[in-house]
């Protein structure tokens, strides 16, 4: 720049970035500016272009047009290595750590400290310790990464970035798999980074966090940068409106369905080490929220009910009948279903076409003498696709190609088709954008209105409070409390039960 600006110069400027993939314009004239020592939240629905913009920044994608300036000078970033040299580091949701190496080995991977070709392990150890100290975390540098908690692995990633001398750190949904204390610790680390003049680009779907940690927010929609504003000038509704492109009246459209008799009754459910003597019931038309800290045993309770794991003790009754559940197969036959928290690993066979995923549990009804009747399969899927507004080019498309929201809807269609009476959602909106979240909430309402019983496991307290008729809180494998007056409850109340 020829003239010296009055205010601080931006550390990074991306301007007029265009990027097209076959059949889709992922970015059109996208912009981004970033100052040293700030936290910039990058927001947008899935498919808005956030990831593509970041991948252009890190050299993973070549841009079709546009400039990237670092310290006011054009930066030639054509590969991830270029980006690393320019001081840009990205911490992805799925960490890029080698699980079988130690924290120290991961931090120094590719830039090992050596003397005459031999590793200088003690020197590396000392440096790793110094990095962890700087971040204020306690991680043993010699621990194998696969034995570390997710928060610790994240700290290793951040230490690795710092060790590389990164000045710009991009964090992609860093809080998605952390407990609330861990999120607090992460925020403390981010504030330290800010203090050290490092710029952070923070990508998250959790709006509360944006207001807590970010200085400015950049919102993307349909590949364009809609606007960049200071967070203190924004409200939650402003942000949602910018992201969705239309005002949303209500984040949680809860409609209370009339409650009937208790349907699923669980008594004394136990499994050594994870679940201790859990008893509860769910009524017809009820949405039962089940929450607690990560690791409190919520998912484990669901898996025991569903027969995915073997229970040591406990009875499960549905409509007064005791169920002998030893496998998911038994549970499905009895009318239960489980929408797992990890759709990709447990909910879907990603390589199979959408139609085949849809019919997997109910193939018996779509077949005759062992032969699949594809036409009936197709018709049934089409009906659900209309009802659930599943956006998919063809029912032959590999499930892998669908967005997270559409994948979740395919899972839902699969279980609706198998006529489940009790539907267990484990983190139904994880990784799903605001617009689709809303649709999922409407579906949960609809299920309750149809007389089904819903168990909704969630870590997001606003969601639990906004969508449940009743809330159960777990702590260390036990039920630690029940909240019946959900409308009058606060997040603090729930948290108090969750920490025991």
């Amino acid at each position: 720049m020829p003239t010296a600006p009055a205010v601080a110069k931006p550390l990074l400027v991306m301007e007029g970035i265009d990027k097209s993939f076959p059949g889709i314009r992922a970015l059109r004239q996208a912009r981004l500016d970033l100052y040293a020592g700030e936290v910039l939240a990058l927001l947008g629905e899935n498919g808005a272009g956030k990831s593509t913009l970041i991948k252009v920044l890190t050299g993973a994608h070549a841009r079709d047009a546009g400039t990237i300036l670092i310290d006011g000078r054009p930066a030639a970033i054509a590969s991830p290595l270029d980006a690393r040299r320019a001081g840009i580091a990205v911490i992805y949701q799925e960490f890029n750590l080698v699980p079988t190496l130690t924290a120290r080995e991961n931090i120094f991977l590719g830039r090992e400290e050596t003397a005459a070709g031999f590793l200088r392990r003690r020197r590396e150890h000392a440096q790793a310790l110094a990095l962890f100290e700087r971040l204020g975390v306690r991680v043993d540098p010699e621990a194998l990464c696969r034995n570390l908690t997710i928060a610790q692995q994240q700290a290793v990633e951040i230490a690795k970035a710092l060790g590389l001398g990164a000045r710009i750190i991009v964090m992609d949904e860093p809080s998605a798999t952390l407990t609330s204390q861990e999120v607090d610790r992460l925020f403390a680390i981010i504030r330290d980074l800010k203090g050290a003049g490092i710029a952070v680009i923070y990508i998250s779907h959790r709006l509360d966090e944006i207001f807590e940690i970010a200085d400015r927010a950049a919102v993307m929609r349909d590949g364009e940068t809609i606007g960049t504003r200071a967070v203190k000038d924004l409200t939650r509704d402003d942000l949602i409106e910018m992201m969705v492109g239309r005002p949303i009246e209500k984040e949680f459209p809860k409609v209370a369905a009339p409650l009937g008799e208790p349907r699923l009754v669980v008594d004394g459910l136990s499994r050594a080490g994870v679940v201790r003597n859990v008893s509860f019931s769910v009524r017809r038309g009820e949405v039962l929220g089940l929450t607690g800290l990560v690791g409190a045993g919520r998912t484990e309770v669901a898996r025991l009910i569903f027969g995915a794991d073997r229970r040591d003790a406990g009875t499960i009754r549905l409509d007064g009948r005791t169920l002998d559940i030893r496998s998911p197969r038994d549970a499905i036959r009895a009318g239960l279903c489980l929408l797992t928290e990890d759709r990709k690993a447990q909910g879907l066979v990603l390589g199979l076409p959408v139609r085949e995923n849809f019919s997997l549990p109910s193939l018996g009804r779509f077949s005759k003498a062992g032969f699949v009747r594809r036409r009936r399969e197709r018709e049934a899927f089409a009906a659900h696709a209309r009802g659930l507004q599943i956006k998919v080019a063809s029912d032959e498309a590999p499930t892998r190609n669908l967005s997270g929201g559409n994948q979740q809807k395919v899972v839902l269609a699969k279980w609706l088709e198998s006529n489940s009476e009790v539907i267990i959602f484990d983190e139904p909106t994880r990784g799903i954008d605001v617009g689709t979240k809303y649709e999922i909430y409407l579906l949960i309402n609809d299920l309750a209105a149809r007389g089904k019983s819903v168990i909704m496991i969630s870590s997001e307290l606003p969601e639990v409070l906004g969508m449940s008729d009743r809330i159960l809180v777990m702590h260390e494998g036990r039920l630690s409390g029940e909240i019946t007056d959900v409308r009058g409850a606060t997040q603090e109340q729930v948290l108090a039960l969750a920490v025991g």
Partner: protein
Amino acid sequence: MQAAATPRHGGLRSRRDVAADVIHVMCRAKEQRENRLMGMAGSGGATRRFATNYGMLGVLALLCLIFSWVTVQEQDRTGSDAAAYLARGLAHGAPKSSKILIVAKTGQEDARFADALEAALKQDGFRVAGKVQGGPREAKKALQEIADAGGGLDIIATTRECADWQVVAAAGQTIPALAGVKVSVAPAYTWPTFLKTENLLNVANQIVVIAVIAIGMTMVIITGGIDLSVGSLVALSAVVAAWLIARWGGEGATPAAMVLASLSAIVACGMVGLFSGAVITLFRIPPFIATLAMMLVASGLAFSLAQGQSIYQIPDSFTWLGRGADLLGIPNAVILMIALYAAAWVLMSRTVLGRYIYAVGGNPEATRLSGIRVRGVLLFVYVVSGLAAGLGGVVTASQLKSGAPTYGQMYELYVIAAVVVGGTSLAGGEGKVLGTLIGALIIAVIWNGMNLTHVESYTQKIILGMVILAAVLLDSLKTRSWPWRSLKPPAA
């Protein structure tokens, strides 16, 4: 028609050069087509799907084309076909008064030639001086007898091969009484050796065993497993079948005994597969290890049952399956193979069980949580693999009319190669049974083509290995992109 020494391989060198150019051009065209297809990624389209599923069909066609091209040469007619052509030629070109001697070797084909020719010549009014079947010695004796009798001789009608014998070719010079005698053979025709019916049937027959076993292996690999025991099972099955037949009547065994022996051998192999499957599902032993162990066990069983020897006490009729050809001249084993592939295709693409096999390979946990008995599916595929290997062993025993514990060595590797070349991913979840058939045929065609073009057997192995690599690489380019670009994360 004077027999002239025609240079059989004349022009072959230059034809090979041309062939190389053709290959080059075709590869370029294929590459361009595939680039276009990749450009259309996301838009789907039946063309792309077809290319992904059956692109190897193009490779197979290309190989057939190449080997046809380089094996084009003059072909001798044989049997009654040769007799008909020769008789027609003589009827038009020789005076009716000619005295003709027919010379042929022994053997079915030559006997057919001699008989048909004799009949045709007599019908045309020629004087047939005699019909000799045997070697040069017999031919010389016959010629000498004719010369001694003083009857003279005008024409020796014979096959291309006998025409090259010194006694026949130089009969006019060596036996003065026969000066002026002509040698006549049926006209040759130009055709690729590769495309001759016998050769094509030979290709099919050679690959039957590999292809049949590959059906089971495809299913196993689609579930994400592997079965290394199939080679040993071929030996075990062949030995069990032969041993039982030897026990139940030996060379005088009844068809019922042979069928029962074969079925017992196949079932025994199915039991071994069941055992592998049980170990894999109940104790969660990796399939590689479990079937490696069974490979050793089965091989050891075969050796101890046969006491290290080959078993030959088998009736001739046992070769019906391996060598017979009852329907339109198509070998029975090939018909069996085609029927099995048809059944496997229906199973994998149309039935519930087939769908489950793909689902288990794609994501076993999600499949289990969908209420499917994953263990049952796995047991099924290993049993099928064992049964298929058992059948392969019976076919081998039938082809070779014996059972020996050394049969089937390295077969597991050729079978896996056929499956992988056919486009099935070792990671599981995807693959096509018909792709495997194409993969097996590709391997057979390469093998056969190299034999026809006289490539040394050591070199054959090197080339086959490289071709397997190339085929798999070509296939992976369709779904991924160029390897040096795949280092970067794929487009979101």
